[in-house]
């Protein structure tokens, strides 16, 4: 079997990928595989072939999956400067802020790669505590809104105080 990348050397590395039942096989020679950062010597780097991923991303962009914003390429991370277009070529984010900036555009990509879009695993202890607090504040705000709507001001005042208290502890940590 011949390497599918260079078409010259024999293919010695074979990968299989299965995304939601859709199977794809790859056959590379060692030097092409290494260029793709996929040498067998790096099992720790996991299974991610740049070209595959970037093909996947390219697939997502032309029609615009959400169909709402016409030019996703014009999206740019205001922290690291990476554009969505560059991201879809490289298949790599520039910084953690990119995740926010590219927002819901990522859902279809994550869905295809993982079959899921929402994390259910480990939460860091320190910043995770903050997440719990923020979640609680969010809930209390909803409750406050409801209480005010129902003109239950006495109860609302208590909730308001509780929110302030929590916000202080968020600010302190």
């Amino acid at each position, binding site marked *: 079997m011949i390497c599918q990348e260079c078409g010259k050397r024999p293919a*010695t590395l074979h990968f299989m990928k299965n995304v939601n039942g859709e199977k794809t096989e790859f056959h590379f020679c060692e030097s092409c595989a*290494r260029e793709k*950062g996929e040498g*067998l010597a790096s099992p720790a*780097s996991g299974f991610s072939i740049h070209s595959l*991923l970037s093909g996947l991303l390219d697939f997502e962009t032309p029609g615009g999956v959400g169909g709402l914003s016409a030019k996703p390429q014009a999206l740019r991370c205001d922290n690291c400067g990476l554009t969505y277009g560059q991201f879809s070529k490289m298949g790599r984010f520039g910084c953690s802020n990119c*995740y926010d900036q590219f927002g819901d555009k990522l859902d279809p990509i994550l869905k295809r790669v*993982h079959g899921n879009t929402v994390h259910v695993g480990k939460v860091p202890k320190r910043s995770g505590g903050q*997440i719990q607090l923020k979640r609680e504040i969010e809930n209390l705000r909803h409750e406050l809104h409801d209480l005010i709507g129902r003109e239950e001001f006495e109860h609302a005042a208590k909730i308001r105080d509780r929110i302030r208290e929590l916000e202080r502890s968020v600010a302190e940590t």
Partner: protein
Amino acid sequence: MQGTGPDADIVISSRVRIARNLLGHPFPMLATNQQSQEVMERLTSVGNSGRLNEIGRFETIPLSDLNELERRVLVEKHLISPNLANESRCGALVLSDNESVSIMVNEEDHLRIQCLYPGFQINEAWELASRIDDIFEEEADYAFDERRGFLTSCPTNVGTGIRASVMMHLPALVMTQQINRILSAITQVGLAVRGMYGEGSEALGNLFQISNQITLGQSEHEIIDNLHSVAKQIIEHERAARERMMQQESRVRLEDRVFRSYGILSHASIMDSKEAAQRLSDVRLGIDLGLIRDVSPQVMNELMVLTQPGFLQHTFNEKLNMDQRDIRRAELIRQHLGRKSDHGGV
């Protein structure tokens, strides 16, 4: 890798890698030298803070201190990735003295914690990696998002950031041609398989690495459990195939293959890496089946690593071309199999 641990006749090693990044810093790929330097100082200071002492003795090695060959050896020992070896820009390795923990700084992500255990110990590898993760998390602010989890440079790692894998030696499943069916079943359950093949369809050295493919939407526990139970089933299939081969008339063919390979490894003067991988696999199987009793499995595991190109050059401390490598490889194997004198003029 000592060739020990549970189910070591089939599982060579178990590995867990966790990818993490620091909040607010650009990922290594886009970082300037100064930004990478900052990340390296931040993370190696945690590594040097003494908190890791409860786990073992650690040494911090800036990649810039190592020459090309030294880096290649680390790659072949699976202690760093080729990626880190190539782009040494402010990269560092924090390594435990028994080499079971290697922490990479400024690889594709700021932090990659990797735990490698001999044999089938994937749960143990995860627990240790997670402990080290907690230590770093106490002192460094991670990029974490409530919805997406741990934010990584590549979207294939986001969420848990965990990649768990077992390296399995599956010669009997290959010989009895059950392997393809099993591998395709594995990919159906969200796991990825990597094999290294020679020409045709026969896997080089019959080594397969099975790892999780999904990092988002499953908890670490689910990921590890899934891999564990699938690997357990493969172990049983491989054992059953080995037993059947030993009972049937195929036994004599199997013995012939094992001893033929043993003979060639013990006496050959030229050995390319592909043949070495296959012959070492045969002998390793022969040891596991009790056909060969005077060679330890540890020696076989060592040879699987030692016979790789970078290692050979390192061992012989010189630049070798391909022909020289094949000669040195044969020499090294003979020595390890205790046949040193065979070519010394008996």
